[in-house]
């Protein structure tokens, strides 16, 4: 197809929802169409664009640089970094958020995986690190990393999300910050390790054990209680992340992986598992990750990271360069299974179009969704809403606020964790100039 014909085809696609959302089938099996459309979308005009005559650039005429042992991103990508909450390494916790608005795809690069550490990152010698499993077991046992490397391993993809991710969304006024600041405490990796069930079998669990506690080797000895069910079901001692050893900030040399459960429970620097007959009510489960609700109601054991999605492109921090075609995309995930459907709206939820899901969709893992959009240059509000295979749906903002409440005063600092477990819709308001704001709609 010629470029003009691409544009004509694109222009002829009827919108399937308000404000120019196109049929997702425009994205399926029509690479040629979309390649042309993407080019057309960048410039204001698809016809007669004046391109400069081509010539060789300096890097094309001399030998390039040496090959490094370990690759680093291009020097032109220096802005693609995590944002930190504790730049001076003060004696408190430290958050690093994933720049969702600057990356694409479904796997989070290990260097950009979010981390929260409560007492710094311990410098652990893997040869000396030990994992002990004891308590209500037939025989307490201790494992070295070398031991675990010989066990049968499993590879799977899983997101990890801090229970406090998206906490700024509980502010009574929308915080004007990026998707990174709002939702940067969730990331998605491929994990490889030994199933906890294999090790539980080896120590022989007392049938009366109903929970286990997992504890880290960091100086705060962070510990969390986990129902034994999860231990038998899909808990993993993760040794590798995206093919390499788990990185120090992410739990080197081993961490607990509890797919779909609160990030804080996925204990890093894991050194101890104890089988017990009651939850330990550790600091983090008794205080931090319990919720205060309106009407003096209190919640505990909110383990699940429920179904959620947010648009990363375009979003706050971007601007639209004139009317035309744009690829709306974002991530969707659920602690209760695969993503089944994502709907996208460009008119603040008045009408919706089904987004294309980039498969394969894995359980408790990111699914990238895309929706083709022809922006007419008028104000628009972009939203996404996800459903999972268990039938759970991302709640509307009005629903979650009615049940959970919101801050008494507007909050402007994304590092203030007003509450946890916000999984409602994020809205990006676009004005006639293509500027993007975070709005509630």
């Amino acid at each position, binding site marked *: 197809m010629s470029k003009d014909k691409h544009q004509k085809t694109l222009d002829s696609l009827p919108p399937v929802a308000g404000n120019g959302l196109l049929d997702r089938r425009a994205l399926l099996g029509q690479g040629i169409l979309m390649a042309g459309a993407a080019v057309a979308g960048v410039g204001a005009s698809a016809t007669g664009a004046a391109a400069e005559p081509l010539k060789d650039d300096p890097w094309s005429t001399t030998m390039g640089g040496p090959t490094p042992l370990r690759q680093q991103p291009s020097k032109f990508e220096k802005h693609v970094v995590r944002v930190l909450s504790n730049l001076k390494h003060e*004696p408190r916790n430290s958050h690093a958020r994933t720049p969702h608005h600057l990356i694409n795809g479904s796997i989070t690069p290990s260097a950009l995986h979010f981390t929260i550490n409560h007492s710094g990152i311990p410098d652990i010698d893997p040869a000396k690190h030990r994992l002990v499993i004891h308590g209500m077991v037939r025989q307490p046992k201790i494992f070295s990393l070398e031991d675990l490397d010989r066990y049968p391993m499993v590879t799977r993809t899983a997101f990890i999300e801090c229970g406090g991710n998206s906490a700024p969304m509980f502010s009574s006024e929308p915080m004007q910050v990026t998707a990174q600041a709002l939702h940067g405490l969730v990331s998605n990796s491929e994990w490889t390790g030994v199933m906890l069930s294999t090790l539980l079998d080896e120590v022989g669990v007392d049938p009366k054990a109903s929970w286990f506690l997992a504890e880290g080797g960091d100086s705060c*000895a962070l510990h969390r209680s986990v129902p034994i069910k999860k231990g038998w079901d899909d808990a993993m001692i993760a040794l590798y992340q995206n093919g390499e050893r788990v990185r120090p900030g992410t739990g080197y040399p081993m961490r607990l992986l509890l797919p779909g459960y609160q990030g804080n429970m996925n204990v890093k620097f894991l050194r*101890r598992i*104890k089988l017990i007959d009651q939850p330990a009510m550790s600091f983090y489960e008794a205080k931090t990750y319990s919720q205060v609700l309106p009407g003096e109601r209190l919640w*505990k054991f909110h383990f*699940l990271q429920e179904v959620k999605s947010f648009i990363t492109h375009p979003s706050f921090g971007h601007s639209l360069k004139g009317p035309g075609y744009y690829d709306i995309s974002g991530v969707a995930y659920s602690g209760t299974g695969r993503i089944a459907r994502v709907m996208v709206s460009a008119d603040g939820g008045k009408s919706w179009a089904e987004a294309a899901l980039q498969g394969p969709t894995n359980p408790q893992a990111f699914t990238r969704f895309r929706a083709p959009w022809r922006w007419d240059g008028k104000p628009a509000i972009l939203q996404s809403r996800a459903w999972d295979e268990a039938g759970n749906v991302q709640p509307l903002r009005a629903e979650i606020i009615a049940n959970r409440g919101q801050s008494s005063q507007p909050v402007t600092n994304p590092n203030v964790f007003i509450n946890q477990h916000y999984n409602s819709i994020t809205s990006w308001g676009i004005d006639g100039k293509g500027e993007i704001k975070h709005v509630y709609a």
Partner: protein
Amino acid sequence: MSTRKLLVALGATLALSASTAVAQSPGLGKNITEADIKAWDIAVLPDGSNLPPGSGTVAQGAAIYKQQCALCHGEGGVKPAPGYAPMVGLQKWDRMDAPKTITYYEFATTIFDQVRRGMPYMSPRTLNDDQVYAVTAYLLAINKLIGEGDVMDAKSLPKVKMPNAGKFIIRFPDRI
């Protein structure tokens, strides 16, 4: 998909039952006794399990608190350093931004456990068990949860009546 289903899908037969899994695991874990785990085995449970011997008074705790805790957590548990929640104050939780003070905890054992494992922040696990009981007693006393003359030990601590005990709703009971 559960891991077991995943393994089945992969054609593996691991972990399908205790007997087959043990048979196919390399069994490299070395036996260790609970006595040898003791230094790491610090978690205290709400029923008082694993509380160590020893005891501490409110007065002893006040002195330790002043020296070791007040810099961050504030003299008397009020007016802490920026970013820290006060230790005393509100006892009503009806909005999400109400600070979770000492009275918020469902079980007094959590306070002992957290002080012992993580405090003081820069030199954790340097207080002895008597000192941890004492600091715990002080924190409970300034919140009027125990009397000024009460002594905290393995027997008395789990019996302290916390105002929020039994008030928490389990969010997802089917997950437990």
